[in-house]
């Protein structure tokens, strides 16, 4: 026997909290499965595309940069250098972009009282982060097997860097997802004003040290740059960045996630009515 009451705070008991958490994890699990089906189910090549896209990106930029300069001043292999920039950055950008349409494309599901806006948004975020983490690990393995030997200096540091980027992506994703039902034009902001400029300026293709002043200073305001510097310092034995600051990046990541969740909390009722 299950007791529910709408729009009215039930008595908080341990049992009711456990019950609510159970329901929520069930719902999020079901939503992740459902998102997987709608995104990859219709085409057999769906999952392949998730791997092919970063492979293509990395190949293009490796080709471009090896054509531009023959020497490799940083000492890092170009393939792994690009890989450790592009895929972690995608963890931020793609998570943010996948999440932002969550409410409007799942609006039929709000007929089920146990499905909340939080659930549909986080489900997309979880799926994207899991897929990209898998893709990252897979591509590192592939590079190690077929191209250059990969020895990671500090796997924990790489994981921490990925977590920070995922947190930033989740925070932005929550904010955009909650605002976009009321203001659809916000989506252009996320792709045109955030995605592309950050893609070019966050140090995916160069290290902070190789950038002349005063641009180096400007770059260092960007928390993503800090994460990438730190992540590469952890990844490569031959690279140690004096610029990357874990503390600065962590403060940003936590703030972005908290701000995203707060915006969602403030907007969620209006976001549903706005549909």
């Amino acid at each position, binding site marked *: 026997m299950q007791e*529910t*009451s709408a*729009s*009215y705070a039930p008595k908080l008991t341990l049992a009711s909290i456990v019950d609510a958490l159970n329901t929520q994890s069930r719902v999020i699990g079901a939503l992740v499965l459902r998102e997987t089906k709608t995104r990859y189910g*219709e085409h057999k090549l769906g999952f392949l595309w998730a791997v092919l896209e970063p492979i293509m990106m990395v190949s293009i930029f490796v080709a471009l940069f090896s054509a531009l300069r023959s020497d490799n001043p940083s000492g890092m292999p170009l393939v792994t250098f690009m890989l450790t920039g592009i895929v972690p950055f995608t963890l931020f950008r793609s998570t943010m972009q996948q999440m932002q349409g969550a409410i409007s494309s799942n609006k039929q599901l709000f*007929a089920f009282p146990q499905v909340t806006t939080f659930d549909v948004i986080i489900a997309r975020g979880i799926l994207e982060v899991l897929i990209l983490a898998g893709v990252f690990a897979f591509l590192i393995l592939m590079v190690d097997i077929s191209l250059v030997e990969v020895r990671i200096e500090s796997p924990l540091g790489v994981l921490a860097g990925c977590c920070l980027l995922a947190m930033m992506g989740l925070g932005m994703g929550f904010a955009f997802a909650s605002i976009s039902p009321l203001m659809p034009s916000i989506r252009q902001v996320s792709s045109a004003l955030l995605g592309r400029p950050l893609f070019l300026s966050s140090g995916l293709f160069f290290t902070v040290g190789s950038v002349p002043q005063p641009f180096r200073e400007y770059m260092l305001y960007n928390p993503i740059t800090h994460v990438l510097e730190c992540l590469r310092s952890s990844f490569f034995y031959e690279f140690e960045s004096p610029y990357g600051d874990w503390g600065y990046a962590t403060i940003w990541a936590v703030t972005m996630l908290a701000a995203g969740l707060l915006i969602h909390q403030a907007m969620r009722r209006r976001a*549903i009515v706005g549909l």
Partner: protein
Amino acid sequence: MIKLVNITKRYRTSAGVNTVLNNVNLTFPVGKSVGILGLNGAGKSTLIRIIGDAEPPDTGFVVSKGRVSWPLGYTGGFQTNLTARENARFVARIYGESTEYVEAFTQEFSELDEYFDEPLRSYSAGMRARFAFSVSLACNFEYYLVDEALETGDARYREKFRLAFEERRAHASVILVSHNEQTIRRNCDMAAILHDGNLTLYDDLKEALQFYSFLQTRAA
């Protein structure tokens, strides 16, 4: 038991504020199937969505004991690019039911045959409703919220549903909204009328239907 306490719901339109539900208080009796009649635009769908906790009221709250279904109808709740099988499994998961049982029951009861593995977007309205009702029957709710009864679909199938609900009468009740008095007469024990933001429950079905036909003629 489902109890509505001081429920108010307003919508802002370009013409001004439209009060759809004005401080509505009502207790739905246990074991009775209640029909809610209202003219087009009276706020019937809003009301059933609020009862089902799919939409928050502006003020007031709903107290419900027992498992309440989502508002059943022609649309809502389902992703149209997924198949009936996938949607049935999804519903089973979020209600914590056995996915195998719900899937099997729905497949059998809906009689969708080869369409069961086709995306819902290729379904007619009647087929979608058949699917929605079958999934909800598989979940064993104590309250079934129905937004417009199954009016399309052939008579034989309508009868099948009526019997299925009849069978569950002892431990399940239906709350059905409709603008059609025939539907209410066929399926309900008592009726409430939603008019001008007020919801009035009549113990006597006849009395309710009489007042409703008076409303209809006045509106026309």
